[in-house]
């Protein structure tokens, strides 16, 4: 008897509604899960720093949150699509996948930093400028070409300004002094190195 009535329970018009409501709860749970995963990321101030040229060429990348190589490529592609096409007078901020990307154009180079929704965008914009000013002081009227050939130096400088996604030093002088100390310590080694590498370069020409 039961066996025969139950199939018709299924036919009752409201049953469909309920089963699917249950599905709704499932997806809610799923969302919650994703949220937790994202939450892990949100401890950081700055998630990553990108330098992209106007042609979309990557000049420097620094990832403070974990991103796989595949994700990185995707991020760069997506962001350069968004940022390079933006007009000159618009905001320097872009909302992107629940985060915000602050960017600023210097000559032909875009400096981008990704932050969370609640951070102070204007501050990040000034951190970018702070970085550029330090680069400028170090290279002496820095231009894109300096960064192309000396990207590792740009990394060293960035490491002195930002650490684990936070601004660690806001004094230009202090940063400059540290970098200079590192450079002077290796100066002697470098002189030998450059003569050596010149020789190698000549040999391999």
């Amino acid at each position: 008897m039961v066996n025969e009535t139950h199939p018709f329970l299924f036919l009752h018009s409201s049953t469909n509604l309920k089963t699917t409501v249950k599905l709704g709860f499932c997806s809610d749970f799923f969302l919650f899960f994703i949220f937790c995963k994202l939450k892990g990321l949100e401890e950081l101030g700055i998630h990553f720093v990108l330098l992209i040229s106007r042609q979309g060429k990557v000049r420097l990348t620094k990832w403070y949150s974990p991103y796989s190589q595949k994700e990185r490529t995707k991020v760069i592609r997506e962001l350069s699509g968004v940022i390079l096409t933006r007009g000159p007078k618009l905001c320097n901020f872009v909302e992107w996948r629940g985060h915000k990307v602050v960017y600023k154009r210097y000559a032909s180079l875009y400096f981008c930093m990704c932050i969370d929704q609640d951070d102070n965008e204007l501050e990040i914009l000034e951190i970018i400028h702070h970085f550029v000013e330090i680069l400028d002081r170090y290279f002496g009227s820095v231009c894109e070409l300096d960064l192309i050939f000396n990207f590792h130096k740009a990394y060293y400088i960035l490491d002195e300004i930002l650490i684990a996604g936070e601004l660690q030093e806001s004094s230009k002088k202090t940063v400059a002094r540290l970098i200079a100390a590192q450079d002077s310590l290796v100066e002697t080694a470098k002189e030998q190195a450059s003569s050596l590498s010149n020789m190698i370069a000549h040999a391999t020409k």
Partner: protein
Amino acid sequence: MGSQGGWGQSKEFLDLVKSIGEARSKAEEDRIVLNEIEMLKRRINEPDIPKKKMKEYIIRLVYVEMLGHDASFGYIHAVKMTHDDSLLLKRTGYLAVTLFLNEDHDLIILIVNTIQKDLKSDNYLVVCAALTAVCKLINEETIPAVLPQVVELLGHQKEAVRKKAIMALHRFYQRSPSSVTHLISNFRKRLCDNDPGVMGATLCPLFDLISADVDSYKDLVTSFVSILKQVAERRLPKSYDYHQMPAPFIQIRLLKILALLGSGDKQASEHMYTVLGDIFRKCDSSSNIGNAVLYECICCVSSIHPSPKLLDSAAEVTSRFLKSDNHNLKYLGIDALRRLMKVNPDIAEEHQLAVIDCLEDPDDTLKRKTFELLFKMTKSTNVEVIVDRMIDYMISINDNHYKTEIASRCVELAEQFAPSNHWFIQTMNKVFEHAGDLVNVKVAHNLMRLIAEGFGDDDEGTDNQLRSSAVESYLRILSEPKLPSMFLQVICWVLGEYGTADGKFSASYITGKLCDVAEAHPSDDIVKAYAVTAIMKICAFEIAAGRKVELLPECQSLIDELSASHSTDLQQRAYELQAVLGLDGHAVESIMPADASCEDIEVDKSLSFLNSYVQQSLEKGAQPYIPENERSGILNISNFRNQDQHESSAHGLRFEAYELPKPSITLRTPAPAPAVSSTELVPISEPTYPKETNQAAKLSTVTDTGATELKLRLEGVQKKWGKPTYSTPVPSTSSSNLKTTNGVNQLGQATLSSHSRDVSYDSKRPQAEISPEKQKLAASLFGGSSSKPDKKPQSTSHKTSRLGNPASEKPQVATASAATTELAPQKTAPVQTPPPDLLDLGEPTVGDTIPSIDPFKQLEGLLGPPDVSSSTNSGTVSVTQPPDLMALYGDSSLSGVSSSISNLVPTNLDSMNLVSSSSSAADHGGSKVALSASLKKGPNPQDSLEKDSLARQLGVTPSIQNPNLFRDLLG
């Protein structure tokens, strides 16, 4: 340039960079990089590579990886390099590993030992390098290995080391808060460090700690306030000034912390009032950084216990932001407004026009921020305008992430503030139509439930009206192509339940439509299932009403097709439909009562309605049911399979059919008696579907009693799925609100639905130029939020106009939208810049034909504010005069120039490719750029000349591709 500026790399590397710089496509670039990888793979594994060479290889690996390729083959060499004694090499090694390895990489374990050693080094630079690596590489497991040393370094004599040690501990805290909980006193101590850099760094971990647990840090409020005071009074060394602001980054951090500490704490907040007031007064609002500090101040003021005076200052700054031409400031203004509104809801009102300007701004970022604000200030009085705007915007964008977000916001607002059910359904239709597959499934169920339940009032008439209007709108929408699956499900369900309810549409018309839906989505099983169930309902209602059901041929073929479907669910539904068709009217009415979707089915777990049947069977000699827990020793009471029945009793409801029992067995054993556990020997009996139809037909009388039994139970049962979960109080109250405020009577609106909808659609177009329209919009947005609406003349006038007749707006609106369409192209034209590729190819040709004129670059210079002054300064040099003139007239002649360039490009493209390799052209390009670059550069022309000549010596002439390479980043 000096000693640092030289490019101390080998020719090979420079060539690599150069060739990548000149690559014309991503494919070409990839090819070059892959070659490089192959070469590096070979070389790097050769024995006895000189260290300098190895260092270069590592840097090349970094470069390759930066370009998005995999350099994992070389990671181990980078790890090895960290072991080297020379700082130069070690630094390179650390740099490479921090860039290569994520915190969970296997190789990290090989570095920990080196890091431990380096943390003990006498050379503070080595320690610094190690600490930088610690921040990136040390994961939860390896924290204990370095923690003691890092803590020790907090007392290092060099401030740089102390600072990095703090940051490392901060990182440890983020990775695993428990690892550093015993060290919190150290953070407090470092707050008093002599070096402002260390103190500033300490604020990072403190911020995290305080946001996790505010109460244990209340004692620090006075310290933070006094630090902030000192900072604001320029007590810190001059080197921390940034653009004439005293240590702004530290100020911002302190403000963030104070916001946390003062939130909901009057006493703590009162300590802060003076210093916050000082900052508001002193802050330089002409620089970006000053505004950043001001913005942070507003955030702080809106978070702490409110002080009227500070709120006034905050409001003043906010209005300055909103009035600014700078989009960044407008953006911050909108955000500040959102924050201040939490404290004082009236504040938005005086900025209504600015908000609407932002809403209509072409800048997407600003628009989205404004929607966020509107979302927060939605009330039942302005919900229609806001949601309509949101939907319009939602339709216009492609970004799925944001589309989902804004769709769910629309749904949330609509559910919360819907002025009428009709409006709710219309809104939902729009959301579903355009973002159906992105919204949460729950939304669909809410919509179905709302249609089924109606207002929940006694007024059955309104509900029916609502339903028939929903049916009508769905039938109309069905003709549109490409509806999202979720929406189709809703449509099918509603058509099944109410398609024929008001008698307007015939059953065959509705079933025909449903068949079309199923046919149009052959791959979507869920939609098909909804469709076939809906058909079944329609048929059942027809049968119950005593009408004869003639299945349409396409419907019959659909059933045949589904009976043979691979999906058992679809199969079952098809068979059930056939079964229902064979039943008589009385039985069908009991199993498929019309409009009973809201009624709850009570599951009688004890199956008491079977008692008489069981009794009968027992009398006939059947064995009694023994509950499972008492059953251990007894086997084989029944041949029935039981597993499923256990399950069903556990779940309460079973949604799939039981297989049919063999009639003979049914007679012998009590049906509800599931027996024996899994040791049963008898194979599971297979149901045969043809049989089921027979059975079903025969069963009509039996089910009849069962179903009525069930139905009896429905009364007085608390609705589990009913109203309470759905927002209850809103509909009735807000609808009355609507009546009073908008003055449109409810009935009229319902009948004129489509008409008034069109009107409000039109009025949504951007009308930046026409202020009355904007004012109207403002009134509709903000009027409701105002506590004293009569104060604003425009808002009342708007109301009267609405009172009269919604259609009267129409002509006005039409002209407005015409005006905007006319103006729009003019407005956008000057902003447009030609696509970068075109530009970059075009430039050298221009340079060749018209020597020393590079209008584009000058134009670019114009766009970037820092360049303007320098290019005008260099006006004394004769060579730059033409470009300057061009620049001056650039604005007006831009379109002309761009078109001429694009004309030039196709013809010169080939020749350019040929020429680019020849040295003369390269030199020409180089010198040209050098000239312009040096001229542009007020302060340091020597540098760029030197750089350029160096570049040319090295044979690097990226200027062909991108002359901007030589431009100062800071103009």
